[in-house]
């Protein structure tokens, strides 16, 4: 097990190093190497998941020790780890395949595929890690690979800014995470997940609440939740497969995974806060998605909103349901991102949906699979999203009605903006030259789409999951099935997507180059478009507070420390030397004068006049 896990973990790192050293100029070999690495990871992961009997596998070795503190490098492969491992390896492999087609003309392919490999390495690290510090290490490393890949088109200003923003926003989250880890260590004497779980009798007090909220800051940063959500939409500046893999299916979901791994630490108060944050994010991001024009930004806001659902599920005490939704979301969101990639690739990097239209005839496979994704996320009955999302809604309905109302409105909104996206992109007539000449892509790109579409259809049936994968979900999902109000929920859930569909059909079936919503409800449209001014707020902070403060401190340093203290000290010395120099004028009568004064002083002193 150990050798297997270690080799799976370090395989992608090795591949990235080989690419860095030998394949910097050889795009074809580099991309093949990276894809076969991803294939290798998938095989090893499957062996790791299915070939061992133990439900919990763990192993560790000393990595670093100092002053009585020992950090261990270890793996904890239990239920949630196996499921996430499967998602990462499987979706990762498909996206690698897709990248082969999508990036075929990019001159910087070695850098791209090297970055993907580093990402796989760090993401596997998070999945397998058995203690918080190790998670933190890989946590920062996924942040780094995300930075690297967002900056892929670094010549554009947009990518340059977005990569920086993503890293710094994540760092803000990690700041809290770091403090949380330190507090955890000194409160419980360990950061090992198993040992922490064994110390189960936490007396829920203020300290534990602070501690778990500090740890949850890591989740807020990585999963782009309020108030650090601003980085994710900008991160769409990276290549589309990257958005699919990192910013939709896996890395941003790692935040939820972190919460699952430490769920026993959470107190009631902390849980309710997270549920509220998640639910509000679910709704807020839906409104933002409704008015976007960029296809990837719509999907990005949708990801934010779905992450909010997962957080809400976790906060309401259903981590299994959260993980279930994470899994199905990984399938259909990766599907839609890759679908958008397929469209973007065919339309020569046009991303404005109002310049698409009528693509269903030209790209039938992409259109069909995309539609499946849209249906799945909207919760159309018996597709994957229906099961996972309605499980969350049902749970909320039974345990927390206000949260349910927010989440339910979010669900209606989801289906509106998703059908809007589908209608504007694939129906109607083509509104630009690029769209008119779009062609369906090669099998390298459509193949992964089809596989993901199948998973989006069937991924919601729990019996579909072998026991090795689904073991963590069993408990929570069986609770869900025994909850009351089931039929009522089916009706409500069905109503949600039908309302959305009807609304979107009436608004967006045939659009011109302007958004119909902007014409009919301009105020509402503008409010949504402003995204409640978070970007402006942060920009104001940076430009008007942080940078001026930095410049102010620079001046102060120059003035007071360099100037007053250092130069002042030098100046005082110089002043004394000037005064002293005044005595040495080089004229004999001046010396005689000083001599006289000195003698007088001496005489007066010896006469005892001073006493």
């Amino acid at each position, binding site marked *: 097990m150990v050798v297997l896990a270690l080799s799976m973990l370090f395989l992608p790192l090795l591949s990235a190093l080989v690419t860095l050293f030998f394949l910097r100029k050889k795009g074809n070999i580099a991309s093949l190497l990276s894809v076969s690495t991803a294939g290798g990871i998938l095989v090893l992961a499957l062996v790791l998941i299915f070939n061992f009997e133990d439900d919990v596998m763990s192993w560790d070795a000393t*990595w670093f020790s100092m*002053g009585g503190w020992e950090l261990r490098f270890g793996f904890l492969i239990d239920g949630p780890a196996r499921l996430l491992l499967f998602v990462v390896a499987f979706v990762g492999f498909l996206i690698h395949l897709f990248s082969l087609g999508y990036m075929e003309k990019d001159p910087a392919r070695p850098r791209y595929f090297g970055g993907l490999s580093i990402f796989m390495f760090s993401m596997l690290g998070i999945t397998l890690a058995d203690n918080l510090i190790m998670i*933190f290490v890989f946590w920062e490393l996924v942040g780094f690979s995300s930075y690297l890949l967002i*900056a892929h088109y670094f010549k554009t200003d947009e*990518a340059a800014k977005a990569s920086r923003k993503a890293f*710094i926003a994540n760092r803000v989250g990690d700041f809290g995470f770091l403090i949380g880890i330190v507090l955890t260590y000194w409160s419980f004497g360990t950061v090992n997940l198993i040992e922490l779980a064994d110390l189960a009798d936490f007396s829920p007090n203020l300290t534990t609440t602070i501690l778990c909220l500090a740890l949850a800051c890591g989740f807020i940063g990585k999963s782009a939740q309020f108030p650090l959500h601003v980085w994710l939409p900008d991160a769409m500046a990276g290549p589309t497969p990257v958005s699919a893999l990192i910013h939709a299916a896996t890395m941003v979901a790692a935040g939820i995974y972190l919460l699952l791994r430490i769920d026993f630490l959470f107190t009631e108060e902390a849980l309710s806060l997270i549920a509220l944050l998640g639910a509000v994010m679910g709704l807020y991001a839906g409104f933002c998605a409704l008015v976007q024009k960029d296809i990837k930004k719509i999907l990005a806001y949708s990801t934010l909103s779905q992450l909010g659902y997962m957080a809400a599920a976790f906060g309401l005490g259903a981590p299994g349901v959260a993980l279930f939704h994470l899994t199905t979301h990984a399938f259909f969101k990766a599907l839609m991102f890759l679908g958008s990639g397929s469209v973007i690739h065919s339309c020569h990097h046009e991303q404005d949906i109002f310049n698409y239209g009528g693509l269903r005839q030209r790209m039938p496979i992409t259109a069909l699979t995309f539609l499946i994704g849209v249906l799945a996320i909207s919760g159309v009955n018996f597709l994957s999203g229906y099961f996972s999302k309605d499980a969350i809604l049902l749970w909320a309905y039974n345990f927390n009605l206000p949260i349910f109302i927010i989440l339910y409105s979010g669900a209606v909104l989801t289906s509106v903006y998703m059908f809007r996206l589908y209608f504007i992109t694939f129906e109607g007539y083509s509104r630009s030259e690029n769209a008119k000449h779009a062609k369906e892509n090669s099998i390298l790109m459509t193949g992964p789409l089809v596989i993901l579409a199948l998973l989006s259809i069937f991924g919601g049936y729990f019996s579909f999951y072998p026991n090795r994968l689904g073991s963590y979900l069993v408990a929570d999902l069986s609770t869900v099935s025994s909850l009351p109000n089931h039929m009522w929920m089916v009706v409500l859930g069905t109503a949600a997507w039908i309302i959305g569909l009807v609304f979107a059909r009436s608004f967006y079936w045939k659009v011109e180059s302007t958004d119909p919503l902007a014409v009919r409800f301009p105020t509402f449209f503008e409010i949504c478009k402003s995204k409640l001014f978070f970007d402006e707020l942060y920009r104001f902070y940076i430009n008007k507070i942080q940078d001026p403060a930095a*410049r102010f401190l620079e001046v102060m340093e120059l003035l007071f420390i360099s100037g007053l203290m250092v130069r002042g000290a030098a100046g005082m010395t110089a002043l004394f030397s000037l005064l002293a120099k005044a005595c040495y004028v080089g004229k004999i009568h001046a010396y005689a004068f000083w001599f006289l004064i000195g003698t007088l002083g001496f005489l007066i002193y010896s006469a005892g006049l001073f006493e």
Partner: protein
Amino acid sequence: MNFDTLLLLGSIIIPVIGSLMFFLGYPKNDDLLKKVGYLIFGFPFLAGVILFLKFESSDGYCFELLYDRMGLQELGITFHLGLNGVSSPLFAMAGIVGFGAGLAAIHSGNERLHLYLGLLAFMLSGLMGLFASVDLFFYYLFHEFALIPTFIMIGIWGGRDRRSIALEITIYLTLGALISLGGLVALNVLVDAPKFDFPHLSSALAEVAILDSTAQKVFGLLLFGFGILVALFPFHTWAARGYDAAPTSVSMLHAGVLKKFGLYGLIQIAVPLLPDAAFSWSPWLMWLALGNILLVGMVAVAQTSFKSMISYGSVMHMGYCFLGIGACSTLGIGSAVMLMCAHGLSVALMFLLASYTYKRTNTFEMSEMGGLGERTPLLACFCIAATLATIGLPGFGNFWGEFGIFLSLGESSNHLTFLIIAALGIILSAIFGLRAVSRIFFGEESKELSIEVEKSKLTDLTKTELLPASLILSALLLIGFWPQSISTRIDQEIDRRYSSLDGIMSQGRPACCPVDDVQSNENSNPTE
């Protein structure tokens, strides 16, 4: 005298011989000069690495060499070399950075290259010597050896305002050295040790009881003396200005290695010998260290020149080392040593890369460099790696030092404020580090850069440039991925020397953790 001690001695003597040769203007042939230069600067590097690998963590010093017939033995001064668990990684680090700086100097194409190389070799011998000295007199003497060439080199080869800066730095650092010397002498006089070296002082101190108030004063002298040399806030202004003006190799060696002298002194001498005084001074030290992190960090954000940003950044990260020392625990101090090693490497790498960038763009102004990444992908790659190393990304050595220091701050509830404020530094350094990267390498090519491109053919890193950069980077990565490689010996040495300290900490410390005491006692206190 066996092979290992010969290596130790050679790493000090060979650079001196080399520097004398360079001063005399030999070798005249340019090609030969380069080859000899490789040898001279390569020897300490090889010696450092070999001795690092051969180091056996016994009790105390390895590879000892003692010569006590210098005529100064009456004063307790002997020529005594050796490496212990703390100095061995630092010695190796000095060798690596020295080699990098030497290579950069050999290929710098400076005017009066012989003199330049000679001074640099002289400086290097001092640096190697100071970490290899057991005797305090020579420890101090070697520091002065390394310091004097710094002044001369800034004065001759420096950038803008070099004269006044050389003067400022001279006065400032001499003052710092003088104060710390006062502390050292006071310590020696107080305990009246038979010999003026680390082991004898500590054994003598164990027998003599120093008055608390005296110990406080002596520690204060050492703290501020060494503090000035390490650029403790508010005595840091020399550093940024100095590195800014200094030629590359000098910045590398000074910021990377020489500045660690003060921290090394605090860790090896001041804190273990006067633990009570250290404990009572620690709040002072930590508040000032926060000044380094927060205020100097903010000043770094405001910089527009790449090199001064690196300078301020390096001053800022010294704050973490001080915090580790101020935490007064084996964890904190051990991690501070880790950070010293890693920081030495990373800051040297940054200065090296800054000079490479300058060579291509003829400016340090970041706004004039924009969009360099397309033309020089390798340089960009190294620069990003070095920046991420300095901002403490896991995978590079700096992370372990910083993380250990943060962890040590959590131990006492008194230090929680420091923890929270200090951790803000990870955001600050990300802000200025990534800003620099994106201003220099990302975005469209700037107008100034296009002009430079037309004037000269702008190329990526050459082989001779790659060598020192990749050497330093791989050392950083090694520590990052395998921290045990240096931490075991540091831990052992610190544990041995600081056993008294943890006692003081646990007595002087109020309720340990944020959680109620009962619980933390039950759950096996990790410090034990």
